[in-house]
């Protein structure tokens, strides 16, 4: 054993050890990506299962239907007349209808300002007090007048009203049921949930006059399609990549698929043959959505408050009618009604690849961590390299007198440069969040230009001010260290964003001070191609214009803060 240790120590001194890190770091990146592509295989993913036994999904008879069909038609007739009318008008019309069912109602006004636009409206909500409960817990049924695509929720609103009227007749509820009708799918639910938890800004969002207990779950109905449907699409992405508890999704899949015989789709995969390509596609779409971290439906606002929520959106041509969707909601509410405590058993971090297949955090996290570790490896390697004396010493003399073999490092300039560059990121963060919408595009172009010009300028400045090779190494080392650190922290909060950023920033690990002009130009072009502005241009459809609520914007913005700046730092080394 001592001999083994001694030889290991000898190996540490071997100059070949320093050649290794770039390959090791490349290996990390490749392994991270390869790992990701293994996940859809049967051996690496798992079948879903219900962890919380109290849910008992699909174990009850659902009775919604029959005469409720007539009620639904009546409500639909009323709702159709309101299409195109103002927010206040349809609330005025709906409030007496809900009061007629025998429920307490209340309204809430909200106004948000973001990107120079104003989002305002009035939420209407009603509380069905549980016959067997004590108003300490509640389940929410959400129906928005407009879905995220801007279509009118023609069938969803009447269906929600019919369901509420039907629920009122039952005596088995042990949790209050709240019906929430919002004018839009993002700002309205956000305002309501904020106010429900007293986390709102009273100047912009009014407080709720009527409240119930702790929210245990929420289901949103987004049924804009006319006529019968074939399958249900479950939308589950929350703000900032947070997800609802997997048990909720499993229960609905179980009720819709198992009990009612309705197909279930995820991540806009309308046809899924459960083969490898479809699984992979579903997973990648889920990751992209998670990485963007935007709200994807009325349910998204609930998830940050630890209220598990999903949106149900019927699609396709089939023979299922509105009553079938109603029964799915009824079954899910009966399951949620059974809960003795908040959903906590199952996973909060997962990637779904088919309605009955998922990978949990323990399985997928290594890929993001491998990508993050590559930066740390390079940072350590560069640190060691920077500590080596400038003159070449023979390996033999090194083993004998290793202590003075470490050169003194001048830390102040590298630390200063890295801190400065990192803090520069606050400027775009602030500007993009505060300028009006019309100025966003010019501002963006200006930043693209600046982003392209800044690194060469900085590099030129450094080159003219006698920066030593050691200092270059140290600057790169610190930047990579910080990048690796931010990414591994981010991976615990939003895995997909960390992985995407990590992969985009991967070339930064391998940048060296180049001598030839051709290499310089090639590397600059490559780095600019993966720089945040270029990526945003490529994905312009997703980004930039749809900054809606200030809260979401800030949340997304803050994520950008951690990831934007390190990427800006790098191209400098191309010089």
């Amino acid at each position, binding site marked *: 054993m001592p001999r083994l240790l001694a030889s290991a120590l000898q190996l540490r001194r071997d100059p070949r050890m320093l050649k290794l890190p770039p390959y090791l770091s490349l290996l990390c990146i490749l392994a991270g990506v390869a790992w990701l592509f293994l996940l859809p295989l049967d051996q690496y993913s798992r079948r879903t299962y219900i962890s919380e036994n109290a849910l008992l999904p699909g174990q009850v008879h659902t009775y919604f239907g029959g005469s409720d069909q007539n009620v639904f038609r009546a409500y639909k007739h009323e709702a159709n007349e309101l299409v195109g009318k103002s927010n206040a008008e349809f609330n005025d019309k709906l409030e007496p209808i809900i009061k007629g069912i025998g429920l307490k109602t209340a309204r809430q006004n909200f106004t948000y300002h973001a990107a120079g636009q104003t989002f305002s409206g009035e939420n209407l909500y009603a509380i069905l007090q549980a016959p067997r409960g004590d108003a300490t817990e509640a389940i929410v049924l959400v129906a928005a007048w407009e879905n995220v695509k801007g279509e009118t929720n023609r069938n969803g609103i009447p269906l929600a009203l019919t369901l509420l009227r039907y629920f009122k007749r039952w005596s088995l509820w042990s949790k209050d049921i709240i019906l929430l009708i919002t004018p839009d799918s993002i700002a309205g639910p956000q305002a309501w949930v904020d106010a429900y938890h007293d986390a709102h800004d009273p100047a912009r969002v009014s407080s709720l006059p009527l409240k119930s207990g702790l929210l245990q779950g929420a289901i949103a109905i987004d049924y804009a399609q006319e006529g019968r449907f074939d399958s249900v699409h479950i939308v589950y992405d929350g703000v900032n990549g*947070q997800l609802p508890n997997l048990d909720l999704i499993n229960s609905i899949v179980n009720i819709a698929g198992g009990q009612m015989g309705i197909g279930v789709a995820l991540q806009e995969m309308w046809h899924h043959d459960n083969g490898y390509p479809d699984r992979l596609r579903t997973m990648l779409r889920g990751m992209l959505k998670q990485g963007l971290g935007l709200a994807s439906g009325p349910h998204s606002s609930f998830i*940050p408050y*630890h209220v598990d929520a999903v949106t149900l959106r019927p699609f396709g041509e089939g023979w299922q009618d509105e009553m079938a969707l109603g029964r799915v909601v009824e079954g899910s509410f009966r399951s949620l009604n059974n809960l003795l405590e908040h959903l*906590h058993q199952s996973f*909060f*971090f997962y990637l779904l690849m088919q309605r009955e297949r998922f990978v949990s955090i323990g399985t997928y996290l290594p890929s993001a961590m491998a990508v993050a570790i590559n930066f*740390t490896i390079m*940072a*350590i390697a560069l*640190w060691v390299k920077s500590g080596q004396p400038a003159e070449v010493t023979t390996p033999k003399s090194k083993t004998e*007198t*290793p*202590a*003075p073999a*470490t050169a*003194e490092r001048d830390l*102040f300039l590298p630390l200063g440069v890295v801190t400065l560059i990192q803090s520069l990121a606050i400027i775009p963060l602030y500007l993009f969040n505060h300028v009006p919408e019309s100025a966003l595009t010019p501002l963006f172009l200006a930043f693209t230009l600046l982003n392209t010009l800044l690194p060469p300028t900085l590099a030129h400045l450094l080159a003219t001010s006698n920066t030593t090779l050691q200092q270059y190494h140290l600057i790169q080392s610190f930047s990579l*260290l*910080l990048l690796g*650190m*931010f990414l*591994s*922290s*981010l991976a*615990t*909060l939003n895995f997909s964003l960390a992985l995407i950023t990590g992969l985009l920033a991967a070339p930064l690990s391998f940048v060296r001070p180049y001598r030839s002009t051709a290499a310089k130009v090639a590397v600059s072009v490559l780095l600019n191609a993966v720089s945040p502005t270029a990526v945003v241009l490529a994905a312009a459809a997703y980004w930039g214009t749809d900054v809606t609520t200030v809260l979401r914007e800030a949340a997304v913005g803050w994520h950008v803060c951690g990831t934007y700046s390190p990427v800006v730092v790098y191209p400098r080394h191309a010089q």
Partner: protein
Amino acid sequence: MDGAKVTPGRTAGLYAGAAVLRLAIFTLFPGIPDLLTGRVEISTPVTSFKRLQEGLFLYNHNVSPYDGGVYHQAPLFLPLFSLLPSSASLPIFTYLLYIAVDLLSASALWRIADSGESGSSALFTSPRREKRWSGFVIAALFLLNPFTVATCIGRSTSVFTTCAILHAVAKAVSGAPFGAMVALSFASYLSMYPLLLLPPLVLLCYDRQRSGRATKSMLQFAGTCTATVAGVLSVLFQLSYLLTGSWEFLPSTYGVQLTLSDLAPNVGLWWYFFIEMFDSFRSFFLAVFWLHLSSYVAGLTVRIRRQPLVVLTLLLGIFNIFKPYPSISDTSLFLALVPLYRHVFPLMRYTFVSAAVVLYASCLGPAFYYLWIYAGSGNANFFYAITLVWGLGLSLLVCDLMFAVLRDEWEVERPEMAGKEIRQI
């Protein structure tokens, strides 16, 4: 940077810059002070500004401040803060007080650095002492350290302890034993644990006595010092008694630290351990933990007798890891003293590793706390794991510094071994 000439202008510039930075954060981002005050990394049950407000409210309404079971800080804070205008209506005065305390700490640190005690004490002169940073650099490193700034903005009352400890050391190196003992008594009165610094501080005072009126006998000197501390402490206790009208403050302040009755999470290692503990073992492990913490004092004081300032630095580092309610304020105090040993930095072996570990921990800590408390998708183990990593990083730094100092001493004894690799047998 090393030999930069320090003019009065630069001194004023540094202090003004640090003050403006803090004032700018206070005034431009009014949400940040309250945000940081709520962070567990900054505010512990025994230093939190929020709890101070609670105690102050009770005190101003003629109720015993310890009645609510929330306030665990020294009674003398109450008249000090009730003299200031309320921090809710006119917060600027509170801000100015905290900024002034930070600047006072920095000036004490400056004096310690300029005394050169870290490089050449009465009994030992390091051959490497030429390579050192000026007081300006060391004060700047303290004032601009993000941990120090965050503590100041979070208005944790541990800044007063930090200031008292630094002044005690500064008085000691400038040959004023009485002043040092008074400052140490204040520090102990505020936070209790600085009392453990008494032995090395007495040695430091003894070594640095002014030649004119030096006391020859070590025992006599130590006796006088201890008596001074005891005297000042009893005066402070008496004052506290007069202020609050009962001795209730003793169990509520020092008792809480001794028995860890408030188990709010913090960056230390105690809270989780005592949450998990069965009640029957509690008193035993409390004794073990305290014994462990105080056992370092005797050992280090004897082993590094020739450099008492090193003992003080290492002890502050160890307390910062192992004391019952540590916060990043204690880290900032330890990190303030580390740059005094610039001359042994080349002997340290794990600077990069420990710096990276501490950085990682300070980045992952808030993330895991968020996962546990807000997102609800993590649990207490997440945060505890990261506090373990934090403790690991800091203990690496403490060990490394200790190694470097001992090696420096050893190379004086064995000049032929200078520069050779040592191997553990």
